[in-house]
């Protein structure tokens, strides 16, 4: 079988006595959505931080596209094709939605050291950006500053930015958080089609979305993965039901 796109081996991260990530191994294979679920404080975002390079693990390795990326910084991992969205929207607030996405297009093209041409007249930036915005349903909010977008629209903008990077893998940290039922449904449809472009490691609390989308699910509790398998296997797992799905064993 082909090597997974993202391969995490025996990753641990301690903050003093607290083991935020405890010997976690998981992988992400081409064409799949691998969902990571767990109660608040289980260490999901800490794990994403380590994969994206914002946090240095205490031990373990992270391989991406067949290479060890453990020593690389955030920007270098992003350039290699690891696109991450933030649990709390992280945008450039003064820029319009369009310019937020254009910056991602420019980053993908690897050309930020150009000093003269006006970006707004550069179709190689504006066209892919508008396409990404339309795809997430923000086609009519192109010129609105990010700071003036609604909460749900900012979540959509996060996705548009990730799309514009055309990554080799997506790390989506609760993309549906606070989106409302209609937005969640639309995003579910979008993500369903997206896995063919690049595999998705999806952290999500919306269980309807997780069980509708995920090819595989891993459950993380107190920094440890307590179960991993298909949606049906996870539903049937008694330990998961006790620890997380809130059902009596």
């Amino acid at each position, binding site marked *: 079988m082909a090597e997974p796109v993202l391969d995490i081996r025996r990753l641990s991260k301690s903050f003093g006595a607290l083991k935020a990530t405890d010997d976690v191994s998981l992988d992400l294979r081409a064409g799949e959505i691998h969902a990571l679920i767990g109660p608040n404080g289980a260490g999901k975002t800490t794990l994403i931080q380590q994969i994206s390079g914002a946090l240095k693990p205490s031990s373990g390795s992270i391989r991406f596209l067949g290479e060890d990326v453990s020593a690389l910084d955030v920007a270098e991992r992003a350039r290699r094709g690891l696109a991450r969205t933030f649990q709390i929207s992280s945008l450039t607030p003064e820029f319009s939605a369009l310019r937020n996405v254009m910056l991602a297009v420019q980053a993908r093209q690897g050309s930020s050291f150009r000093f003269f041409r006006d*970006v707004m007249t550069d179709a190689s930036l504006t066209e892919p950006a508008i396409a990404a915005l339309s795809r997430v349903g923000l086609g009519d909010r192109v010129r609105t500053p990010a700071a003036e977008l609604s909460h749900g629209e900012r979540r959509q903008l996060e996705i548009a930015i990730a799309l514009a990077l055309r990554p080799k893998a997506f790390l989506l940290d609760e993309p549906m958080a606070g989106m409302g039922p209609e937005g969640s449904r639309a995003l579910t449809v979008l993500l369903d089609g997206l896995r063919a472009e690049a595999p998705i490691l999806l952290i999500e609390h919306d269980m309807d979305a997780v069980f509708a989308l995920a090819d595989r699910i891993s459950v993380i509790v107190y920094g440890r993965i307590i179960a991993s398998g298909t949606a049906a296997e996870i539903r049937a797992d008694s330990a998961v039901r006790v620890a997380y799905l809130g059902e009596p064993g």
Partner: protein
Amino acid sequence: MSRETLLNAGLALLLLVLPLAATALGEPFYVSLATRMAILALAGVGLNLALGFGGLISFGHAAFFGIGGYAAGILAGHALNAEPLLSWPFEFSGSDQMHVVWLVAALASALAALLIGAISLRTSGVYFIMITLAFAQMFYYFAISWPAYGGEDGLSIAIRNGFPGLNTALPMDFFLICYVLLMLALVLSWRIRDSRFGAALQAARQNDVRVAALGIEPFRTRLAAFILSGMITGVAGALYADLNRFVSPSMISWQMSGELIVLIILGGAGRLFGPVVGAMLFVLLEFLLGGLTERWQLFLGVILLGVVLFARGGVIGLLVGRARHG
């Protein structure tokens, strides 16, 4: 045309008409006042790249201003005495030509900005402010303790450096040189603001975590901006020394760094013509109030307080509203 563009055009015209009218009225003193405005505006345009677009509050830009000033003074001195300044790797005995002086000023400032930036840009916030200040103070004390070039007393420039085809001793000719350089720097600043580099720089000011997550290194972007910024301020320093025909360590003092920040805040940080308005107001206030009292900066302080409290976008923001980004 937007209101800001109209305002900018008006300001550019005003700064040009002022010395022309003064010359026509036989008041050459006002030409040198306008020249001072143009030079400080140029220094401010440099700082605005780092501070306004990049959010890098450099409290050490006097270092570049001073380096430019000393470049003018030292090159002119060596040219006058025909003493070689360099014998290796090539023979160089100074120059009394402005374009050579500017080149040296820009290169020396770039080198200093590379050094200062490579270290200080690893920090942010108040630490960045303090490290840039510390570096400028090091340059200040170095200039004071360097007797070969005047030490504390500074260095006179016997004859203002020349420029091919112009008589720089004439106030109006020298003003035009400064004015054209200011306009060129403004065009450069305008292109950079709207370019890909400018987008990365301004985005890093707003959210550097996001910028890094896209794969753009905030550090490299900022360092490039800091170097460009230092170069422009360095050229302004060379002009300032030629204006006064004198350069001294006071050009590198922390008060000078502070004045550059003040005139940007006054005019509007991150606005293209912010430093121009700031410099015009600053020099005007210094002239009008300085005639009444030595303590004229007290009034400057009150005005600055008003701007910070009630007009965060500076005078430009007050007149035309907030900046729009595409």
